[in-house]
């Protein structure tokens, strides 16, 4: 299959031949190989895994969100507003940012934008923690 993986500030892959991608869809994680049925999916904050041809372990990126479009011709376009390699995630920053967000959440007014922002920070940091092997709650 062919992968195009783009961020606003950088093209990570353009017409790359890969064997599979595992996509963190908002409705659930799913894998795409050649001849996959066409599909449009919103992404959640989670891990995108790219399996290169003739390589063992997948290349992993943590994406903040975005969209994945799989076309009938085995081309998949993935656009994300931000992505970092898992190796570039700082585990102590994730833990401390999660704790700050949790405090902000409990002290914010119920249903307020501030509480929603704290919840977004909690959920994204929790997902990053899961991706790098931390169990944050």
């Amino acid at each position, binding site marked *: 299959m062919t992968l195009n993986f783009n961020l606003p500030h950088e093209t990570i892959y353009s017409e790359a031949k890969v064997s599979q991608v595992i996509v963190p869809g908002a409705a659930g994680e799913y894998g795409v190989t050649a001849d996959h049925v066409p599909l449009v999916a919103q992404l959640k904050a989670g891990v995108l895994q790219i399996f290169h041809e003739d390589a063992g372990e997948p290349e992993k990126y943590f994406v903040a969100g975005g969209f994945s479009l799989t076309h009938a011709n085995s081309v998949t376009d993935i656009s994300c507003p931000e992505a970092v390699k898992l190796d*570039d*995630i700082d585990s102590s920053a994730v833990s401390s940012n999660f704790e700050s967000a949790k405090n902000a959440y409990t002290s914010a007014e119920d249903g307020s934008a501030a509480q929603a*922002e704290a919840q*977004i920070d909690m959920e*994204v940091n929790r997902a990053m923690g899961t991706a790098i092997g931390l169990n944050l709650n």
Partner: protein
Amino acid sequence: MATPTTFWRLAGMSYVQYVTRASSAVRNAAKEPAKSKLAANSKFSYNASVWEGGVQGKKVEIDVLSKAGI
């Protein structure tokens, strides 16, 4: 009965606000040198003005989503 939607919609946020916040959370948790390289991605600015009767109004610099009314 609760509307089946996301918590951020219920709090009055748009998808743009939601995904911008999630992107900042990812950048804030990055290690150096990635963190410095990505820091600039949080910033944006543009000038906006309202036209009335064929006349361009005063330009206002928008550098946060709240100023854009989103």
